[in-house]
């Protein structure tokens, strides 16, 4: 039957991954609907959807590298998510500059926090900034990296547990074997565990990103925004809800 110690440990790992996803979400520079009209700084999408988009790119990379050691999977997935977010932010800037003729600028501070240049003169009056300035770019890159790491930790846990049970038929599982490489398994044997792990990771992205998004309420510029101080509230809620979710997931996979 199911070993309760493995159940609790797996649920704890998934809960920590959930908190990482929540931290990654709050670091993304999201402008929401106003940013699409060049009225706010950041990316012009909803919070949870942008996070899902970048996290999923990381998840795909993790699925492709399924038989590598744990730290390689996690690092590569984070880098994939960061690349996706960076390309999106770069092209958004190109469109703002060439399509509408506006330089990027942020409005919550007078000087850009990274390059220490004066930005107040570039903001259009009546708006709260537009485009993706350098500080928001760095913010987004780091946030997407952390979210990719969180998503791939979940993927790794569920995938390895399901593989041990369904494909290899192991009865005794050591929790640290989650992070070691798999040898000699062809791709067509692991289709079912990968599909289950993908479903669970998708669900986890949406739950954690949504809780954080309700706290952000639409527009956030970066770590200097006052809304950033509410991070602990969202993190604790995410931890508890993901812990319950992790228990349910372990009941299925084991």
């Amino acid at each position, binding site marked *: 039957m199911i070993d309760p110690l493995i159940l609790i440990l797996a649920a704890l790992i998934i809960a920590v991954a959930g908190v990482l996803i929540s931290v990654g979400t709050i670091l993304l520079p999201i402008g929401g609907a106003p940013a*699409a*009209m060049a009225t706010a700084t950041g990316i012009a999408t909803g919070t949870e959807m942008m996070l899902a988009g970048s996290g999923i790119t990381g998840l*795909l990379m993790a699925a492709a590298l399924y038989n590598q050691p744990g730290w390689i999977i996690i690092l590569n997935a984070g880098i994939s998510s960061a690349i996706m977010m*960076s*390309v999106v932010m770069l092209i958004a800037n190109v469109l703002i500059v060439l399509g509408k003729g506006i330089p990027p600028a942020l409005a919550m501070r007078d000087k850009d926090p990274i390059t220490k240049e004066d930005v107040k003169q570039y903001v259009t009056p009546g708006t709260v900034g537009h485009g993706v300035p350098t500080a928001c770019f760095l913010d987004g890159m780091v946030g997407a990296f952390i979210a990719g790491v969180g998503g791939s930790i979940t993927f790794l846990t569920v995938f390895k547990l399901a593989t041990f049970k369904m494909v290899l038929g192991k009865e005794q599982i050591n929790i640290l074997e989650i992070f070691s490489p798999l040898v000699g398994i062809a791709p067509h044997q692991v289709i079912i565990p990968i599909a289950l792990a993908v479903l669970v990771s998708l669900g986890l992205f949406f739950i954690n990103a949504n809780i954080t998004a309700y706290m952000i309420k639409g527009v956030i510029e970066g770590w200097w925004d006052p809304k950033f101080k509410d991070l602990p509230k969202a993190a604790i809620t995410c931890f508890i809800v993901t812990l319950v979710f992790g228990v349910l997931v372990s009941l299925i996979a084991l």
Partner: protein
Amino acid sequence: MAPWQLLLLALLAIIVALAFIAGWFEDLESEIGSQSNPNSQVQLAPQMGVVHRFFNKAISGEPALYAFLGGTAGGLFVVFWQGFHLHPLIALPLATGLTEVFHVTCAFNAHTSRIASASTYGHPLYMDVLLVHLPLIAAHGFMAVTAITALSYIFYTSIVMPLVPEIKGFIGYPVVIPALSLMLGITAGAIGSSTGDLHYGAEREFQHVPFGEGVPMKHYGYITVYAELGVRNSMDIVWFCAKLGGVMTGFTYGLILLLDNFRLLTGNLFANVAINIVIGALVLAILFFLNRYIEVWSRKKFGPYS
């Protein structure tokens, strides 16, 4: 080079081409139906007393809709290909064509119900707007979803059951086709929503606001209703945005898939996973400095607000 290595490069090229088409048509479809963030202005317009002839397709955000369409098309493709054993080239348009019936129902629900909910502001329901735009929405959606499903078919079979056995394990993702097309759909929607919609929302929707500045909130709701020849409808928006917004969205999606698959392919070809990490860090540094260059260039060229 051995033939199978050329085949790998050919696969990479076709993946990037399909991603370009998927991104381009995803953005155009969200403009022919006026979805997602710029649609908030089309929804606000009746409240400000502005009567318009745009199609108000407020289904959800673009990533959510493309997840639904991608997942449904992927699932129907598996039904026809693995279930009824049709050839993939026949199963693909059949699956995406049936998906469009779902899409058109959702779009129909959105327009009629939103106009009915705006009845307190006296906005009329124009039947010709409804009937003319629905087939166009289906057509643009068909192109985008076919590209996404074809991409997921290529990714899945390259790693699980390739026609040429030597290329097994080099490129592709071992995720089942419905899940893969759902995830590619979410990514396409997120990209289209954050890049292409900027061209629609900031430029085309508020065309009477001067070029070279952002759109202040006092203009919200007062969208451009009269256009080059007579009254504007969503078709006028699409031909304009296809020239810049759509192209940049396709470029973004193609670039992302190119960088990711290039990293994966190079790492697998040299059987050394550390290469992935090094290439990834290099790419991130290049993108950061490109962004910094664009920011500095635009500030020097356009100058402060005056």
